[in-house]
């Protein structure tokens, strides 16, 4: 028999889900990101063509989501590095809140700059 959401409903587990989901999403996104930038090899006009498409509001919304995912994955990752490599201390319990806060700030800064 296996665990269901009742056993998984605590902060460190939510952090794991965010970390794994964001990591997977970013891995899927990366090849597309590299392709888009590689358009520059065809000249600035080719890159501009892609960038014009990315001005669509839906794309900007998706980009904001991506920034959030990247920030969340990075801050969550730094939290894990601290838990694994630093001596275990009580203040580390707050790392999760700090990580969440920082990534939200990053996402917000991006969103505010594209609107």
């Amino acid at each position, binding site marked *: 028999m296996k665990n269901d959401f009742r056993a998984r409903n605590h902060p460190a587990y939510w952090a794991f889900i965010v970390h794994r989901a964001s*990591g*997977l999403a970013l891995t899927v996104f*990366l090849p597309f990101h590299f392709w888009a930038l590689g358009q520059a090899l065809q000249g600035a006009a080719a890159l501009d063509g892609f960038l014009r498409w990315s001005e669509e509001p839906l794309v900007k919304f998706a980009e904001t989501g991506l920034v959030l995912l990247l920030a969340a994955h990075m801050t969550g990752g730094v939290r894990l590095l601290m838990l694994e490599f630093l001596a275990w201390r009580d203040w580390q319990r707050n790392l999760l809140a700090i990580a969440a806060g920082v990534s939200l700030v990053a996402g917000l800064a991006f969103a505010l*700059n594209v609107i």
Partner: protein
Amino acid sequence: MNRRSQVLLWGAQRASAAVLALCVVVHLVTVIYAVRNGLSAAEILGRTRGNYGWLAFYALFVAAVAIHAPIGLRTILSESTGWRNPVLDGLALAFGVALALWGWRAVWGVFV
């Protein structure tokens, strides 16, 4: 894969994570700054064309991602499928090589 290699693979993932933490901070700051007043090829390429600093930075960024992502993917695949064989390792390696090549192609693309 023997135990020691598995440990070193884990270590490589953590080491590349530390490098990526720094790269991502720089990248996020750059992105947030760059999107002010819209994105244009001229603005991006104006920053990266002929700039050895950005070339080195993004080349390192790509290398770190090409190490970090496939190792994570290998774990996720083995946990969701239950496979535990060299095929998985081969797939991860292939994906890492592909990421590195595509990524360095893009880095070169915005440099020349």
